[in-house]
């Protein structure tokens, strides 16, 4: 259990700060909502043990994305998360039904449709994706992880948290000013493009 109770607002602010604060908020939410892993993911939707934590964590990350993109505005964070979690569970079951014929009984739960309010949160992005697209996305994720930690942090600050070069310079000790921040961003971005090219070439071979 978390040592301290955090309000929804505090957690949202931590996620918006990005970096370690965002990670910390996600850890807290993971602990606070862990009972939903049992009640919703495992019991209600009967998602097997080996995938249940992955589905639960996908929902946490989707929550974080929604907060970062200002899609979540007000209301109970837990209710919002429950809706995301439900959608993630249904996505998982639909995906599994398409890829295998394992689920033959009680398909009513998979055909469940979100209510109008939930549709606002509903994301079908993963459902219609081909295997080839999935592989490409995995490759792109790997490419980013091959960058140095510093480059990763700077690119995340710029592209995911919307920090300006001036703010990046203020955040990192070794970046003296906005001009240095801009050139560092450029170098890191170029390195990323190179890694993507190399990975795509090796995959094509």
């Amino acid at each position, binding site marked *: *259990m978390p040592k301290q109770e955090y309000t929804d607002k505090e957690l949202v602010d931590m996620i918006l700060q990005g970096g370690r604060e*965002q*990670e910390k908020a*996600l*850890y807290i939410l*993971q*602990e606070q909502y*862990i*009972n939903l*892993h*049992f*009640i919703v993911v*495992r*019991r209600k939707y009967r998602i097997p043990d080996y995938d249940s*934590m*992955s589905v*639960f*964590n*996908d929902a*946490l*990350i989707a929550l*974080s*994305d929604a907060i970062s993109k200002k899609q979540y505005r007000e209301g109970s964070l837990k209710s919002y998360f429950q809706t995301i979690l439900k959608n993630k569970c249904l996505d998982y079951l639909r995906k599994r039904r398409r890829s295998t014929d394992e689920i033959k009984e009680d398909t009513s739960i998979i055909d469940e449709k979100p209510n109008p309010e939930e549709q606002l949160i509903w994301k079908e992005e993963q459902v219609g994706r081909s295997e080839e697209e999935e592989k490409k*996305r995995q490759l*792109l*994720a*790997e*490419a*980013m*992880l091959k*960058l140095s930690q510093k480059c*990763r942090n700077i*690119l*995340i600050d710029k*592209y*995911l948290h919307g920090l300006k070069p001036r703010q990046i310079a203020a955040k990192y000790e070794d970046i003296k000013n906005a001009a240095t921040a*801009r*050139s560092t961003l*450029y170098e890191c*971005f*170029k390195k*990323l*493009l*190179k890694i*993507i*090219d190399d990975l795509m070439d090796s995959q094509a071979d």
Partner: protein
Amino acid sequence: MKNDDTFDQELYEKIDRYLDGEMEGEERTVFEKAIQTDVKLAQQLAKSKQARLSIELGRRKELKDKLTARGEELLRNSSIKVEEPPKQKNWLFFLMILMLLAMMAFFFFGPKFTQQTISQPPQPVALYEKYIDWYQRSTTLSNEPDSSDQAVMLDSAEQYYLSRDCSAALPLLQELQKTPPVASLNYLLSGLCLLHNDQPGVARSQFSRIPSTATDFYWHGQWYTALAWLKEGKTAEATTVLESFAPIRHKQKQKADELLKVLKQ
């Protein structure tokens, strides 16, 4: 298209401003026209979009890996040790081997062997095996449906227990024990799961936490406490617990008296 030298910092920043929606008016119109005519620029724009997606997906993967590791730790770091129940197939195979060995022993040693066995007093562990069962409530004790998180969790845990999935039931029960007041049913089911998971000592400590005011659960707890002692081969302790059933009326009393009789033989 490979990255080439034309992708200098100026072009990078220009594409960035375009993608961020910071390019406006004539500059934007000119840039969009250039994308239509300049293949290299169009390709560079596509690659920049791809790199942005890479940043997002990479961060997501990094976070998910960390959450996965932590999630597993969360489930693993239970103060109550969760053990996977043995797989049924292995259990059946083991049982078949045991039966085969028993039959072989019977044919090899003949009536002399069986005579000796019968004359031995019953072994406590064998008695435990004979009497242990999967407790099931005959009636629902709550008068009104309770939809609180705690009630739903306890209900879930009970369902897992009834489907003999203690690996799922125990973490829920343990989580609930962190927030008092703890239901007597929780202690009873926790103890039973632990008993079925070969942890009789910890199981007894759970049973001992059931208050005597919760009469029904309390006496069920006493009955399984006696069985937990038997599982450890401690007949005297089991006998003492079973003797406490003497003055009471409870559905386990008949079995308690029967077992007591066997133990006192």
